[in-house]
């Protein structure tokens, strides 16, 4: 676990190929929750929490249960990695269900503020995307968890930036046809273009 291995994963996940702005994943919560900074922060933390644990659990399941479940006996070459997406979805859904119950118990206001977007994390392609990328790139469990956590932080960073810009856009006189989602998409586009500047940062 040398710095040379760690750096490309962390900087790569947060800045260079940011899960939202470079890989264009998880756009619907990105547009939906970024009206207010507080809810954006709440959503960012929730997604980072879910991504970290789901990357860990999915990496463990993938390496021990799906790759070669039984090393001995007649089913030695049984390879279940084809079913990884199904398993990942089940894992993420149950994790989100647990987070929802905990959040309803402990921070009711955040639960109401996030509203429909909290259960929507299950179908959030950023979370599933991180799990899939981990499995496809064949990283170790610890590296996958770090990648999951960093891409979660990347999502939270992009959401934070975007929410603060949208809060300022609310005070400006945008023409009627561009108000709401359309101005958000244009802003996200320009932000993504700016993030392309980091291309090639990680060799």
């Amino acid at each position, binding site marked *: 676990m040398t710095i040379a291995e760690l750096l490309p994963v962390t900087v790569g996940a947060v800045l260079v190929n940011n899960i939202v702005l470079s890989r264009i994943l998880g756009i619907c919560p990105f547009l939906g929750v970024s009206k207010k900074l507080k809810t954006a922060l709440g959503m960012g933390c929730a997604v980072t929490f879910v991504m970290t644990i789901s990357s860990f659990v999915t990496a463990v399941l993938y390496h021990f249960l799906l790759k070669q479940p039984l090393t001995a006996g007649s089913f030695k070459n049984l390879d279940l990695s084809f079913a990884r997406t199904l398993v990942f979805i089940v894992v993420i859904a149950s994790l989100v269900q647990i987070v929802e119950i905990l959040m309803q118990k402990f921070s009711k206001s955040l639960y109401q503020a996030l509203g429909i977007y909290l259960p929507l994390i299950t179908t959030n392609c950023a979370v599933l995307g991180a799990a899939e990328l981990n499995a496809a790139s064949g990283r170790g469990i610890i590296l996958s968890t770090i990648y999951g956590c960093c891409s979660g932080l990347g999502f939270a960073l992009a959401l934070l930036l975007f929410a603060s810009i949208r809060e300022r856009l609310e005070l*400006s006189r945008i*023409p009627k046809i561009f108000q709401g989602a359309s101005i958000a998409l*244009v802003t996200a586009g320009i932000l993504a*273009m*700016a993030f392309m*500047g980091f*291309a*090639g*940062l990680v060799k």
Partner: protein
Amino acid sequence: MNGKKVDLMSDNMDKKELTEKSETQRIILPDPTRLILSPSPHIQTGPGTGKIMLLVIACLAPAIVASLMFFGLHALRVLVITTASCAAFEYLWNRISGRKSTLNDFSAILTGILLAMNTSSLTPAWVCVAGAFIAIIIAKQIYGGLGQNPFNPAAVARIAMLTGAAGAMTRFPAPNSIFFAPIPDALTTATPLGAAESFSAMGKGVEYFNSSAFLWRAFIGETSGSLGETSALAILIGGIGLIALRIIRWHIPVSIICTVAVFVSLVNHFSPGTTPGVLFHLFSGGLLLGAFFMATDMVTSPVTVKGGIVFGIGIGILVCVIRIYGSYPEGMSFAIVLMNALVPLIDKVCYIRPFGHQNIKSGRIEPRRGEIK
């Protein structure tokens, strides 16, 4: 004037008034129906929006002259096409959206000139027009016009042209040789930054770029590169003019330049040979033009002084990271747009404390200190 005829002969006028007065003086009273009724204040100081933009264009004049000097007619062609299309798009948008024309605040013309300054003189016409469209319509007008756009229009258009039409944007002509000998053949096509990047990649030394001959040439501006970027001298004259006229505050350009200087000297200290010296980085590429004219664009830079310094440091770091480690040779526009995205957060974090703020927060009343006499 509905003046009333009144004889004014009263004794208590002092001597100076009497000599002025003729024997009967027709008293004129103001016409009450043509008075302006408005709440206070009733006086205004300082230049208006239009005048400020004109002053900034005036401060850009040295850079424009330098670019015309070094790149001749091509530079003029790009300048005219970009500025004209920027003004045309703004006029069209106002006509379509039914608002009254906002051309008289000269912001479209300023954006056009700045955009032209960022492109090379061989840029084809369609790229200039597309850049103008992105700068005026997408980066400014759909956000509601001047003052509402979160990103600097010229920087956004520059990035779009750089990522969109990369081929057209990276062909740089050799400058007309006025002060120095024609530049060596190895440097003709690429900008000094691009050349330095390829030299360090191939392992050849970068000492040539630190030699005083090259530094003088870069300072005067006789190197290949975009229109306004090459001549550091012209931009410095314009920049100091802007600060003297109190249109921009000095904090943003100075913090950018200091951060770049610190970062580059650190990199040279730890891993020498990867990149040329501090002066090279300051004089080449779009750093000075970006620091004085684009980063200090009032609309997209933080409001407070503290925020300006943080904004400058952020740009400085991002420019060096992209230039030294990233694949793009010139990172100034990316750094500006990225930090523009952070400006609302910076304004929220380093906002100034109201008068006696700590007392409001802690609820205690200021103790009676401060002696008399």
